[in-house]
């Protein structure tokens, strides 16, 4: 059974992608197609586009 595709904006935190998705990087290469991924939305992550928790500091 497929789960509905969902994007959650965590308060003062990252975007969480859940479901059937594909993430392409700036060069068009596929970075991830996992079930759940955390993406940076504060601009400060050292591992963009993914969240690395830097927003808490």
């Amino acid at each position, binding site marked *: 059974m497929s789960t*509905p*595709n*969902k*994007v*959650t*904006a*965590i*308060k003062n935190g990252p*975007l969480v*992608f859940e*479901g*059937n*998705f*594909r*993430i*392409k*990087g*700036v060069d*068009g290469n596929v*970075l991830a197609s996992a079930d759940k991924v955390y*993406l*940076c*939305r*504060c*601009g*400060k992550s050292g591992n*963009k*586009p993914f969240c690395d928790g830097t927003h808490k500091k």
Partner: protein
Amino acid sequence: MDKKERSYSNDEITVHWKPRECVHAGTCFRELRKVFDPSRRPWIDLSEGETAAIIDIVDRCPTDALTYDRIENGNIEASNTPKPSVAETVNFSIMRNGPILAEGKFTIIKEDGSEQNVKSITSFCRCGLSKNPPFCDGKHNKEGFFPDNF
């Protein structure tokens, strides 16, 4: 018609600009800056590029923010270039020095717990500066957000 909508013409085409449709993917100004320059007013100047190159960029705008009509024998003919349809998988594209472009059907759960359904396309802020989070409002262009210039 929205008061902010604009149309620009050369001898061959008219390009229509609908700012409300823009999701700030940035393909236009990144790839054809001479024609599409957000820091200039008016920001579109068709005299700065070849018509074929302008059409290519307009066709690659992910929304109907940029569309065009051909002018033939003084008459306007619609371009009939529908934007690509959306597949079941949601595609997220990281735009260089810009937002996350999202294409597909999904539900957004915002910080306050409210839900919003997206049917085709939207863009998410990646710089932390948007006044309308989690969506992009183009603010990264004004403030300078260059994480991908490597």
